[in-house]
């Protein structure tokens, strides 16, 4: 029979989180699979061979989106990008995440790809990452014995490498009210195509204003500006307390580059990416200012 198959040696399906953690504790070599849009592609290209998979996709408790009493937002790692883009809570509280979600892949991919998979895959081009960086997201990582909370800024260790210990599963992405209330934000995915494309650069900027005309807080998360997603601390520091003006914003754009470690690849040169950082950070910030209640800066 002619049938193209995935090189899967073993396959397990967890019914609930306990079972998943149990299975993973007993056999930490299993590869967790959620939507599979990264894992299966790697198999197709032979980058994962003789896979041993643990599917967590049927664990309903990991798919929810909740807002706690203290208005901390909890996003289940199995929330798909489609779900994120249509969720009323997310739309109301984290519109920038909706922008990021809709910029990702195409509809069929968004219908299965999960935000947890996006993060845990460790790619610098992950479209949710710059935004989650700007939102100071915290990741809840559980193993059979332990639970720890890691800020997303510390989660990425290198290209394709994240701080997941053997036996651990990402069970929630948390965003504190202090990191989104009163902020305006904007995500720009710069890519050649308007859909079905990997970012040449991902720029997420959020900001809060003080007294309407000064920056209280600016946060800049970038994707593909280095081997991992990153924040632009120097530019953010500079912004604090500065009057909102074209000059300030231009300076923020220029300073943002200092935090980047872009490299030249066949996809884009370092020079071009750095140029884009300067330009797009400004553009994203200008939109974010308006959304934070400020005036439009030409």
């Amino acid at each position, binding site marked *: 029979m*002619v049938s*193209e198959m995935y*090189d899967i040696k073993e396959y397990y399906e967890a019914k609930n989180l306990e079972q998943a953690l149990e299975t993973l504790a007993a056999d930490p070599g299993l590869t967790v699979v959620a939507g599979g849009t990264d894992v299966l592609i790697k198999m197709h290209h032979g980058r994962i061979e003789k896979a041993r998979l643990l599917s967590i996709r049927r664990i309903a408790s990991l798919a929810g989106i909740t807002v706690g009493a203290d208005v901390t937002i909890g996003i289940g790692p199995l929330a798909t990008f489609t779900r994120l883009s249509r969720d009323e809570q997310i739309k109301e509280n984290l519109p920038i995440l909706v922008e990021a979600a809709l910029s990702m892949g195409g509809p069929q991919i968004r219908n299965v790809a999960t935000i947890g998979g996006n993060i845990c895959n460790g790619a610098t081009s992950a479209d949710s990452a710059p935004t989650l960086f700007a939102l100071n997201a915290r990741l809840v990582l559980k193993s059979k014995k332990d639970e720890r909370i890691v800020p997303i800024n510390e989660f990425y260790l290198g290209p394709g490498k994240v701080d997941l210990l053997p036996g651990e599963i990402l069970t929630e992405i948390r965003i504190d009210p202090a990191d989104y209330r009163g902020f305006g934000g904007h995500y720009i995915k710069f890519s*050649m195509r308007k859909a079905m494309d*990997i970012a040449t650069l991902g720029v997420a900027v959020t900001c809060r204003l003080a007294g309407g005309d000064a920056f209280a807080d600016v946060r800049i998360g970038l994707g593909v500006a280095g081997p991992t997603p990153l924040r632009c601390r120097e530019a953010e520091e500079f912004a604090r307390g500065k009057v909102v003006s074209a000059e300030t914003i231009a300076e923020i754009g220029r300073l943002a580059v200092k935090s980047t470690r872009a490299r030249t690849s066949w*996809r*884009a040169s370092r020079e071009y990416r750095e140029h884009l950082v300067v*330009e*797009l950070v400004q553009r994203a910030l200008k939109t974010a200012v308006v959304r934070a209640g400020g005036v439009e800066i030409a």
Partner: protein
Amino acid sequence: MSYQVIGKSVKRVDAVAKVTGKAKYTGDFVEKDMLVGKILRSPYAHARVKRINTEKARALPGVEAVLTCADVPHIKFATAGHPYALDPEHRDIEDRLILTDKARFVGDAVAAVVARDELTAAEALKLIEVEYEELPSLLSVEAALAEDAPAIHEDRPDNVIASGGYAYGDLEKSMQESDLIFEGEYETGIVQHCQLENHNSYAYVDGENRIVIVSSTQIPHIVRRVVGQALGIPWGRIRVIKPYVGGGFGSKQDVCLEPLNAVMTLAVGGRPVRLELTREECMIDTRTRHAIKYKIKTGVSRDGKINAVHITAISNNGAYASHGHAIASSGGAKFRYLYTPQAMKYEPRTVYTNLPVAGAMRAYGCPQIFFAFESHLDEIARALNMDPIALREKNLVQVGHKDPLSDTRVLSCGIRECIARGRELIQWDRKKALYKNQTGDRRRGLGMACFSYQSGTFPHNLEVAGARIVLNQDGSVQLQIGATEIGQGSDTVFAQMVAEVLGITVDMVHVISTQDTDVTPFDPGAYASRQTYVTGMAVRKAALEVKEKILDFVRGMTDIPAGALDLREGNVVYAHSGEVVMPLAEVAMQSYYDPVFSSPITSDVSNNARINAMPYGATFAEVEVDIKTGKIEVLELFNIHDSGKIINHQLAEGQVYGGAAMGVGYALYEQLLFDEKTGRPLNNNLLDYKLPTIMDIPDIKAVFVETNEPTGPFGAKALGEPPAITPAPAIRNAVLDATGVAFRRLPLNPQHVFEKLKEAGLLDRDGE
């Protein structure tokens, strides 16, 4: 002339099959116990295969055969989808082996496996041990043409496949007499067809010991011949069947899989073997569009009359000849029908390199040469301070123009009207004035470009076409043609032609969309925009013959002279009044079952079209350039075509939208990239190769200027390929208009645009 069916937007005859999933493509057929074939590809761009050890692969359970160069016929063959030429001088270059002992590009097939399933086949490929001797790889035409470059093919020591061009007039004199001389260099990229259905075939040996190959091909009859040649067996022993095809655009006008597939089934005792390429394979081991570099020198008088044109070109053919020099050659030949310099010289060279094989792709060499020349013309217009339209209008051909180098004459030509329509639709004069002297970060511009093309390949190649019609008992007909439907809509257009001649409705014409070389009339296939024009002649001829036979039969029944009769609305009628003599179905029944005169009505004709006709057209584009990021947005795009009489407007518009979209991709997004050192493909998948999505294509508008081509069936000329020719130069010229920067290389992707704008100082304002 008034027609009943011609010129109407009748629905595609295959639309229902395609929206219900009933249309069967090559991959949709399953034979019992089908095996899977897979190819082992060279990781090196240029390397001799010193030794292959297949022992471990053969030992793997589930592996049925392992093939290397030594196990398959060692006959060099040509793959190009051209009709066979009796004249050996005119044949395509025979430089390919079914499996090679010398790899000439990354991905070249050095061995193959037949196994019970994909995974086993893939596993077996890994077990084949190949020892290579690496050779210097020649990854650019410059490297291939260097003095000390090694030969990619032994019988072409200089790596030049061919260099024939043409010349007419006294070039030197005409240059000297010109007030001004302009020079420019232009370059196009390598792109790929990306038809949605990858190359796919399966083969088995039938009960009569013949090899049956079901293949997604544009050229079933040519496949049969080439498989026969490659295997060294009589052509009659091969049967090729073409089901529905999911697009080709030229990549399936070449014999890519079938000889190997035939060898595979022979290696397993005739059991069915499927050979299907993955997208990654398809993008490197079928065909690509030639990247061509041009140098143009043009002599012009001060008032814009083009006196002399000298074009030299180097065409990057990749590792094997395929269509070879025919691409550069044909582009140059089609170019001759647009402008009228007194003297012209065209010197193309086609060169082997260690890159994937370039072959036929929609508009066959024309997107390249028109990108170069139409870009060049806009630079001349700027230098002369002339409107680009005015410059072109001064130099366009007219009806009656005779090609200085052949007997071909222009008998219909709507290019002036096309330009006039475009100018008005895009509001050229108003916007040109509006967009003068812009300084902002977003700048707009207008551009246009013109083309000429041909309808089929005469006089270069044979243009024979076959059609067969059978009148059924109910007055409907079956139509068989040798030319293939691959999505372009030819089956529907043929049905319209038959319906028109026989006075019946299109649903009474049953088109057999499958070609089977055992039963279908001979026709080389789908290419060169030849079908409506060339095959259309055969279809019309077949229909006229059936009509004549019907009327003659009625004369036998009624004694009314055939000349007094006609066919209308399913009836035989008096020609002068339309009065019904009898329903066509009645004639049909009599023709089958009359005890004395029974003689079912059929026709089976061939037509050798020893003529050609030139379609024309222009693209008008408006763009906005985001100066800071280098992104170009196409705001408007009009493609205006003179393709003679349009047989079916809806289908014709579809061809224009699709072709122009391909042109937009060519202009802005698409390029197949290779590692500069190793020649490894970098983006041979649809995520990294930037095929445009629905969000990236502007609202393209299709406009037709309908002329009447006296040589074409119902006045028609070619349309399929031309829409892809001029979007790129029109967009490029619009960018020049917007920014003042002359781009000379495709594609105009954001980084390329950024770099050029920076070089031109347009980003300097912020001191960057």
